[in-house]
């Protein structure tokens, strides 16, 4: 496979495109196949839940920390779950140091939207006392190696983190929190498993899970999050345009691939016992 780090030549672009026309990928996959997944849950001892997920050469480590704070005034009985992503400069020569880039904000927000609108995190269970104290969860994604399709890897990594989570359980006694000695685990917090699938588009060819060279030459991407039976979010990025028929086809495809992936990865096996 090509050893691409930053730019890609016209000849390589044509090579990728010509292969795609024959429904072949430069790494030998079919158009609708993922690269290999490896998932390691609960790898960080200082976090209340974590995951080390690789998709091909893309590697993301995600960790969960919690805080107890006041709820939003309009949702007094619901906890908060926020997502942050950092594209570490060690992950790729394209990433720079400094404040969060557009790409990292997009990653966090697309992952957040897919999960938030899917009835995934049970925010009502994260309430200790209405109007007074709720859990605030911070799910932080760190990209360790960038080799295309951060969004799908980020989605699975966030889900695994939430499933493997173990947060000390608190009770409201005499106007303050008392720790019960038990844990809120992923089983209590997580309900639905939304799967986000990203497609690349070059000219009029659409394919699943773009790797780095494909992502560098593609006109654009579309990410679709689905639960078992519903679409929860769609994000199109880049300059590509998608016709109505294509969107229709891709949403059906996402349902299908989501179902398959949910079964293959079997994320519930990563829950921890406390």
């Amino acid at each position, binding site marked *: 496979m090509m050893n691409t780090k930053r730019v890609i030549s016209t000849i390589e672009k044509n090579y990728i495109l010509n292969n795609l026309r024959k429904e072949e990928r430069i790494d030998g996959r079919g158009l609708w196949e993922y690269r290999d997944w490896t998932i390691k849950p609960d790898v960080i001892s*200082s976090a209340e839940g974590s995951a080390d997920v690789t998709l091909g050469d893309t590697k993301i480590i995600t960790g969960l*920390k919690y805080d107890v704070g006041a709820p939003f005034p309009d949702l007094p009985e619901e906890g908060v779950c926020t997502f942050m992503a*950092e594209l*570490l400069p*060690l*992950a790729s020569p394209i990433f720079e140091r400094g404040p969060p880039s557009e790409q990292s904000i997009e990653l966090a927000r697309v992952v957040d939207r897919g999960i938030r609108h899917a009835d995934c995190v049970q925010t009502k269970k994260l309430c200790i006392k209405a109007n007074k104290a709720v859990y605030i969860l*911070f799910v932080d994604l760190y990209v*360790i*190696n960038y080799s295309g399709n951060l969004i799908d890897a980020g989605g699975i990594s966030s889900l695994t983190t939430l499933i493997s989570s173990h947060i000390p359980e608190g009770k409201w006694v005499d106007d303050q929190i008392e720790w019960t000695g038990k844990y809120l685990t992923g089983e209590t917090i997580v309900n639905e498993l939304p799967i986000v699938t990203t497609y690349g588009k070059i000219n009029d060819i659409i394919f699943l899970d773009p790797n780095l060279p494909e992502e560098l030459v593609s006109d654009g991407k579309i990410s679709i999050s689905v639960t078992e039976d519903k679409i929860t979010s769609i994000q199109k990025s880049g300059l590509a345009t998608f016709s109505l028929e294509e969107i229709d086809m891709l949403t059906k495809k996402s349902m299908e691939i989501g179902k398959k992936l949910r079964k293959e990865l079997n994320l519930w096996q990563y829950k921890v016992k406390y």
Partner: protein
Amino acid sequence: MPLIIKDEYPEKLFREDGKRLDGREKHELRPIKMEVGVLKNADGSAYLEWGNNKIFAAVYGPRDVHPHYLAKPDKGILRVFYRMATFSVFERKRPAPGRREKEISMVLTDCLEPLLFLELYPGNSFEVFINVMNADGGTRCACATVAALALADAGVPMRSLVTAVAVGKIDGELVTDLSGIEDKAGEADLPCAITWFNEEFDGKMDLEEFEKCLTLAKNALTKIHEIQLNVLKNKYIAIQEEYSGGKN
């Protein structure tokens, strides 16, 4: 796993049988695991697990200096960036780099710069990015160790590797390789880096103890240096085997 709600310090740092809280002898190191070439995009990279510390380091360079005004016409520059993940510590760290991280970055730069032949790379820069994913005491020492390994993996000409370890004083006794809790609750902590010396110190110790510490550090460092060398050697042995295997 014990439920820890508050970051409490234990009263004693030695168990009744004379061993430390994590079951180590006074001068026993925590388990150390090193790997090189773990990140595909970087010119050189290394991963280190030292007890509960989990650290990635990547080297990019020699490459153009950015911003350009930092470039020096007569020699290359080395920049080290030490960062901790938000979830690497007990209380969530703010995502933006703090003063502590900037200072450690500087200390590490000073520690690694003498190792390189920067005069061979005028107008260029080497950048070392170190990310601590899980921290449990002695991260700056672990970072110096892993950064040297990543530089060597990148094929940057070096005078030697650098190896670092912390020695210190807990409950009145000198010990090697302090863990997170020992660092916070103990009396003194002396991170030492060997080959080109550069040290920091905090706590209270008399001169005699200080000298003893340096000897202790040297003993521990010899062991860690051995691991470093083996990891690098194994990398090239693997390449050699692959090459000769392909020929036959």
